[in-house]
């Protein structure tokens, strides 16, 4: 089938194999982005000496680590899963020579969808808890944390942005595979 139109439909023919280079590139990009996001958040640690208001005022070193917050633990776990899935699906799509065996293509599309949902929920959770950390919540007396631990918060924000881009890449992959299915059968 001719796959000329569409800016994502680059097809490279190697002998009898048709491997979509854009799909391979996107999967590798998703792998690297989720890996970097997981690592950024996972090694995030900041220690600061905070004056605790006891009598007399004590200077206590406080540490902020990612596992103090359950939402960040969920974020790291989901990004690790997405990273592993990206590399496995990359290997599988290369090994199956880009052909559309119905079972494998449908399974990879389904898992892509699951990864998209998981990554979005992890980004949402991190964003929600991070927003509490940045702004605090006056109604329930939750004090903001990011004015003290600024490097911690900035690194978390960077990891969040990378993960959001990673989930957008999974969305693009779904578009490409849907187009591929459509073109093969129509």
């Amino acid at each position, binding site marked *: 089938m001719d796959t000329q139109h569409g800016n994502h439909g680059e097809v490279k023919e190697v002998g009898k194999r048709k491997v979509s280079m854009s799909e391979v590139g996107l999967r590798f990009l998703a792998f690297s982005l989720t890996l970097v996001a997981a690592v950024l958040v996972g090694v995030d640690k900041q220690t600061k000496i905070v004056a605790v208001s006891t009598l007399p005022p004590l200077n206590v070193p406080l540490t*902020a680590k990612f596992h103090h917050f359950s939402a960040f633990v969920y974020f790291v776990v989901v990004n690790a899963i997405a990273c592993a899935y990206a590399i496995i699906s990359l290997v599988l799509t290369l090994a199956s020579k880009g052909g559309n065996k119905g079972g494998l293509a449908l399974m990879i599309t389904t898992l892509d*969808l699951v990864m*998209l949902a998981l990554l979005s929920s992890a980004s949402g959770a991190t964003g*929600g808890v991070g927003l509490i950390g940045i702004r605090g919540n006056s109604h329930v007396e939750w*004090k903001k944390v990011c004015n003290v631990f600024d490097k911690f918060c900035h690194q978390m924000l960077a990891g969040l942005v990378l993960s959001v881009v990673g989930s957008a890449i999974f969305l693009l992959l779904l578009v490409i595979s849907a*187009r591929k299915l*459509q073109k093969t*059968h129509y």
Partner: protein
Amino acid sequence: MASTDYAVPPEPTAPDVEKAAPPPTGDAPPHARHDYFRVADVVLRLLLFAAALVAVVVMVTSKETRTVVAQIRFPPSLVFESDSAKFQDSPAFIYFVAALSVAGLYAIITTLVSFLALLKPSCSTKLLPHFVIFDVIYRWDIYRMNSGLRICKIDHEKQVPEIACCMQLLLGIVAAATGAAGGVAYVGIKGNSHTHWAKVCGVYGRFCAHVESAIAVSIFASILLANLVILSVHSLSKKIPK
């Protein structure tokens, strides 16, 4: 014709209408099978609308007011302070309500469109482009380009951009809303000893029950949306003309 197996009332008359116009494939089994997909499509979208509606309503009606009595030593008096917990207190819950409302709106509109497509298999409904707000760009183009042919067949070819732009994006939005509300609710339930964020659900029990139920229903809505996407992709791959 294998049309008597199915309990859809318009089905026995539809094949006659379809035989008059040039049929897309002219096969009996795909005709029967695509009816399954159409019915499942309508049912799933209706369930999605119901789930989104329930989640939004439960979250919005979650306001709880508690009266706290504080004793002031000088001058000696009792002060009654009323404090309330409502969903507007947290931006994550506001985003949750907004995202689920968008999902409910999308669901009801596409339910109507799919139901119309189910009822009129001859697909001569010129009203299709007018009903679908989100996909109107694609469908209006198709209608203009192929006004002589039937809309249903052409719609399916162009359905892929619809799938791409609408359902997966909506799944991402709804999943993010679920995650955000879940994260904040988890902090409210368990507190955070490291940052001294107090547990709130011990005090506002009814509010927390509402929030938890809304999140559970929205998880169900996300699963429904994922099933919808997989159904559409599956119907694409089975060469079924819709």
